[in-house]
């Protein structure tokens, strides 16, 4: 187990290193942040001065060397745009994205699993067919369009929910969270729903398929023959068995929900990391791009690790050492 985790971590370091090289080269190829940030009225001498002050006049390998040296000392550099440490900028925005993504994943379980169970148990019923048809919409409608429609209906037409923004926040562990206030929850409902639509459909389909596959199996028949209550058969025996693929997928989806919440965040003006990274890419704010991607890579690795461990808990047949 331990060796397996250590091996995973060493792999992670190499992935992070490779990623930083790609970002450095990529940003260098695209252009020069100073051209974008500088005042159009600044003269050539001023431009040269700023390029030098950001260290962009050095050859790329040397810039990368400085970066590695500082990174080893725990400093990922300061944002060219905001003049704040890149990590602090990301940490400032992270709670907003985290709570949005976690809520979205919760939504996908709360809505997806029961609907999928229902559709799997009564596959020929009218409602089951309606649910399945609805899930196709959840897959195929583009997120930004759905987001705008939600705003138009619930904020503009009906006026039930606020249109955009994060709302009131409450401090917990020194971090502002909006799920702790009623106003914050009202602001969070639409973006979280928007972000979870795809996952709801995914979970729904996975649960349905799982149920359909599990029901004819011998252990279910045996449980029924033993005279267990139908609810116990479904909610304990069937549900437990269909959870493995759902946990796997949701684990991976949590990562991508966090990393790619950008569409929802920009439609709902949600001040999370997604908006920060897109703005940073637009102005080639390299320290922020690098720090953000490093964090995302680590996040994915951590989630994969957690999913693997959860496997063991859910299914004792899985033995990690042998698998690795």
């Amino acid at each position: 187990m331990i060796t397996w985790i250590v091996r995973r971590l060493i792999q992670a370091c190499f992935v992070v290193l490779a990623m930083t090289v790609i970002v450095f080269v990529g940003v260098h190829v695209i252009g020069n942040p100073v051209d974008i940030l500088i005042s159009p009225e600044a003269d050539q001498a001023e431009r040269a001065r700023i390029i030098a002050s950001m260290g962009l006049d050095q050859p790329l390998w040397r810039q990368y060397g400085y970066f590695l040296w500082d990174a080893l000392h725990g400093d990922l550099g300061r944002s060219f745009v905001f003049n704040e440490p890149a990590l602090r900028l990301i940490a400032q925005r992270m709670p907003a994205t985290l709570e949005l993504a976690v809520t979205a994943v919760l939504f996908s379980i709360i809505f997806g699993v029961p609907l999928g169970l229902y559709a799997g148990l009564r596959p020929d019923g009218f409602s089951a067919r309606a649910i399945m048809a609805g899930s196709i919409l959840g897959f195929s409608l583009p997120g930004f369009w759905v987001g705008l429609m939600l705003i138009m209906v619930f904020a503009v037409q009906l006026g039930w929910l606020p249109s955009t923004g994060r709302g009131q926040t409450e401090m917990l562990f020194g971090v502002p969270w909006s799920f702790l206030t009623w106003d914050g929850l009202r602001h969070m409902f639409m973006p979280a729903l928007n972000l979870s639509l795809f996952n709801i459909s995914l979970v729904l389909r996975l649960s349905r398929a799982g149920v359909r596959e599990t029901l004819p199996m011998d252990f279910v028949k045996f449980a029924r023959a033993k005279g267990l209550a139908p609810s116990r058969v479904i909610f304990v025996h069937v549900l437990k068995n269909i959870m493995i693929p759902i946990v796997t997928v949701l684990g991976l989806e949590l990562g991508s929900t966090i990393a790619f919440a950008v569409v929802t965040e920009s439609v709902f003006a949600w001040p999370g990391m997604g908006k920060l990274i897109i703005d940073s890419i637009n102005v080639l704010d390299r320290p922020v791009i690098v720090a953000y991607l490093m964090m995302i890579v680590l996040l994915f690795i951590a989630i994969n690790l957690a999913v693997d461990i959860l496997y063991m808990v859910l299914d004792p047949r899985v033995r990690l050492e042998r698998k690795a």
Partner: protein
Amino acid sequence: MRPTFRALPGLVLSFVIFLALGQAQGQSLSIASSAPVTSIDPHYHTLAPNESLSAHLFERLVTRDAEGRMIPALALSWRIRDDRTWEFKLREAKFHDGSPFTAEDVAYTLNRVPRVKNSPASYSIYTKAVTGTEIEDPHTILLHTAGPYPLLATDLANIFIIPHTLGPDPATEDFNSGKNAIGTGPYRFVSYTPGDRIEMERFDDYWGEKPHWKHVTYRIISNDAARTAALLAGDAGIIEFVPPADLPSLRKDSRVTLSEVVSNRSIFLWLDHSHTGPTPFVTGPNGETLDKNPLNDLRVRQALSMAINRQAIVDRVMEGAAVPTGQYLRPGGFGYVPDLKPTAYDPARARTLLAEAGYPKGLRITIHGPNDRYVNDAKIIQAVAQFWQRIGIQTTVDAMPWNTFVARAGKLEFSVFLLGWGVSSGEGLNPLRAQLATWNPARGLGTANRGRYSNPAVDALIDQAMETMDDGAREKLVQKAMKTAMDDVPVIELHLQKNIWATRKGLVYQPRVDEATLAMGVHEAK
């Protein structure tokens, strides 16, 4: 009876709270701005959204009114003592921390501006003309320049004054946290959530007219559709940069009032003047390399300009959110040339000129442009390409993100490309010096001359104007320089954008030439 009595104070209290809330709501305003503020430090980054926000908290010596004319702010008056000395008389004002505003704060600010650490776009370009400061009395300051410099007051209209009590080298981060966010402006800093919002309160000791709104929330909603939705849902009282696509429906919407004004930002096509041999993206009609750059021929430039129907672009592509132009300045700007009209649409004459220049079978041209920078930028070059097709020029369009575009434009890789230029100072020497003067790093001229246009006659007129302290004489020189240059078609001017705001019904906004969205300009309709 007793329970009722017990409840009474509670009832009264809740009624009072209810009234207070109603009151507070009536006096608070939510502004939805379109682009993120990168810092609260007013000297950190020369960026329009930052300046728009800073104008609530801080003030300049000289500022510009909604029309772009210079008016006194913290300076009561200013005059030129001699060619190298300017005198500014200062008004009585108070900073948000209660300390009085004096000449020392001006000297301190001018000293601080070039020393801001890690500034990606320093305000020192507006203070570098000042070689020395001299405090005559607490409310009079003399500024010295190395030579005659007629634009000093114009430049200082960009510099926000901060109090000298902040001590040596105040850190940008301390402005963001609010600790150093102390100015003399009509609003006080309350809080800043990066990427989301800035909260402000009315400053009761403000020297000037007290603004109407007690509490202002300055929110950042970059997505165009979301901004419009926020207005319609009532979450924002005013939004800026109304997207042209929404204009037709908003004009009919009774819940919304629009205010618009022609801005000082013109959109134009740069032509490559730098290559004397073949230019990279212009070839013969069959794709063959030409021996010389056709864009160096005035007749070709005129033909390309005449072939474009500017009114059609303004009506169809821009949904009326622009006006055709033939120069950088809006009518009324200092140095605007009244008889320099937008080039008339004349495809027949364009064909003739092209034939006279030796290209009767036309040319092949690729137009480059950004697709995320100016209003409808990619659509504009598509429209231009179609007009050029009609005079026999096979035109392709290549639009790309600004970050890639600007790097390639800087390397002179393009032949014809779309750009915009906002004349922030509102006077003509700004585009002349930055855009049309010969590229000269040593003298800091032609800094944005991306086509490397060079015309000695224009250069001479610019030099002369830069030494002319008298406003009237200088304006004549500026007009002459602009006319000389534009008759030579260094760039193909297309249109001036309109700045458009939308407010909730019952509110009006005084539209501003400089794109700034100010709570001070939002009033309740009478």
